[in-house]
């Protein structure tokens, strides 16, 4: 293939119709407070894990709702389930349950259960 010194850049368009939202739907069904997150980032600001390695619950919530699941799948196991994010959430989202349900959903998706 020819080298021209430049390439076709990867598309950054978010295709809401084509993306897989099954994980987000699985969580929202079982933990309705998942839907009321306003993505303020208080959870990420207080997160002990996020202070040391790349982990932001705010980012993961957004990605899940967009159906861009791959980064979430990679990072979701980094949470230590300490629960500080629940204490600071201004909307009362049960963030720990969101994490647990996300892990469960990814495990089931591998086993073709959802």
């Amino acid at each position: 293939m020819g080298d021209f010194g430049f390439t076709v850049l990867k598309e950054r368009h978010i295709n809401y119709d084509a993306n897989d939202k099954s994980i987000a739907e699985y969580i929202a069904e079982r933990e309705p407070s998942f839907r009321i997150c306003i993505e303020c980032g208080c959870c990420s600001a207080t997160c002990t894990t996020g202070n040391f390695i790349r982990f932001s619950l705010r980012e993961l919530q957004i990605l899940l709702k967009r159906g861009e699941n791959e980064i979430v799948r990679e990072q979701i196991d980094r949470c230590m389930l300490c629960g500080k994010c629940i204490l600071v959430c201004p909307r009362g989202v049960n963030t720990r349950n969101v994490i647990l349900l996300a892990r469960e959903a990814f495990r089931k998706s591998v086993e073709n259960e959802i």
Partner: protein
Amino acid sequence: MKLEGKKRIWSEYQKEIADDHYFYVRSCIRQSFFPGSEQFFLHFLGDVLGKDIYENPSHTTCTGIGYHSDVVPLSTIMTVIARHYALMKEAGYKHIVISCVTSFGIYTEIFETWKHFPEELEKTREYLYKATGREFDLPESMTHTSDIIYKFRNEIADRAKYRLVNHETGEPLNVVEHIGCHYSKMFPKYGVGGAEFPNVLGGMIEAWGGNVVDYPERRHCCGFGFRQYLVQANRGYSLSNTAKKFSSMKPYKPDLVLTNCPGCTMFMDKWQYTIREMEGTVYGNNGESIPVLTYEELAGLVMGYNPWDLGLQYHMVQAEPLLKKLGIEYDPADKFKTKDGRQMPVPQNLINA
């Protein structure tokens, strides 16, 4: 449906296009890459329709390429444009016809600047007089060459030897129309149909029997953008735009892309070659790429002109699949011959040849 109301609304999107006595200004890109287009335009208006069209050999580039890449300041480009108006005044013409969409954008931008900032107009008059001793008047009408072909599309249809239908199946050809951004996105009132319903190319395609393809990225930029392609490292931005557009039109199986901007024609043509070389991706049917033509080239084909006289062989993506669909007879041996019959060098790796 109340047709009367629709007609009244549509009439507000029309543009006054002069009927005769044109002062013609050429395009830098078109006369280099698609030389048959301007040739056909002048021949069609002058010899076929008998209109009065004049071009002055002292006309220069509008400097639009320099202006958009920040090497020519606004006051300089305004003075260059003023000089063209001065040439027009000296020749006794009032209707300017602009061959290039970039130039058309420049002319409209400067016209509107002078309207809203009359002091800039006075400064430009002064600069031009001091530099050249010339004076100028503003034109009565500003028209792009595609507007003129649009105006006379039915005259072309009356003289048509071929229609835009597949001569084997009888089905209309799927034609993608791509209108240059600087034609009507900046100042909608200067374009046929404005920015919302630009019909300048769609009207031609319908008049000549083709089917206009409507696809999601129809009004997306072709990727030309001076700042995007002038620096090699930035060309990925340009290429990605083109890739996005072609990916979007591919499912509709277009037989042809028709454009009214020299930059769009050049980049949609040549980037298809680049993407094929880079990734092996092609966007046409049966592993072929999609020919990209100017409106004059298509008008010439419809009227039965020899494709090699129209300069189709100078495109990167060759038009042979299209010629076969239209049932146009051509001699492959004449493809790279000069007017007096001498053989020119034949380019290698042409697409669709």
